[in-house]
């Protein structure tokens, strides 16, 4: 069962992708994309976890305590910011699609090919 944590990340990623593919609303698509992204937070932090260790913040503990991997935490932090900004950008695009096309249903949007 030691690998279950990683598999949860895989499950969330697939759930997000399922949501995007079957979605009928572009706002829903964008939120599902952010769910798929949250899988990477889980995977990164699980990879950096260390049994019986504590946070690598030495304000109230002595140096020398077992700590978890700070690098994955820094990466995840960056990832969280990236996720929030990409969500903002895609929501802005979705608003404009609604204004120009009058719908946010991917099925009702005309093809771009001609």
């Amino acid at each position, binding site marked *: 069962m030691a690998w279950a944590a990683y598999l*949860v990340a895989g499950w969330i990623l697939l*759930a997000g992708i399922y949501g995007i593919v079957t979605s009928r609303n572009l*706002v829903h698509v*964008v*939120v599902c994309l952010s769910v798929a992204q949250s899988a990477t937070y889980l995977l990164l932090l699980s990879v950096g976890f260390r049994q019986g260790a504590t946070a690598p913040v030495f304000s109230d503990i002595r140096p020398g305590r077992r*700590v*978890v991997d700070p690098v994955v935490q820094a990466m*995840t932090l960056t990832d969280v910011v990236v996720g929030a900004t990409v969500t903002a950008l895609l*929501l802005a695009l979705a608003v404009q699609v609604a204004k120009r096309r009058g719908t946010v*249903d991917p099925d009702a949007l005309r093809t771009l090919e001609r």
Partner: protein
Amino acid sequence: MGEVLLVAAFALTALMATAVVLTRDPVRQAIVLSGYGLSLGVLFVTLQAPDVAMAQLAVGTVMVPLMVMLAVAAIRRHQRKDGP
């Protein structure tokens, strides 16, 4: 005991993530998304990542919900009356 806590936090997160995806109406989905954000915050602290937990809570409780709700409001103003 600590492991049980981790398992519980992981299970809660997986459950909420699935719920977010399965909620199709954006307004309802945004509320579930806020709940998912809280469960992620708790999970990150159990994974000993308070910095990330704080970032997730800061973004996930107000910023992203506000953006989603403003987007939904803007879309409602512009959607075709006869549209689907």
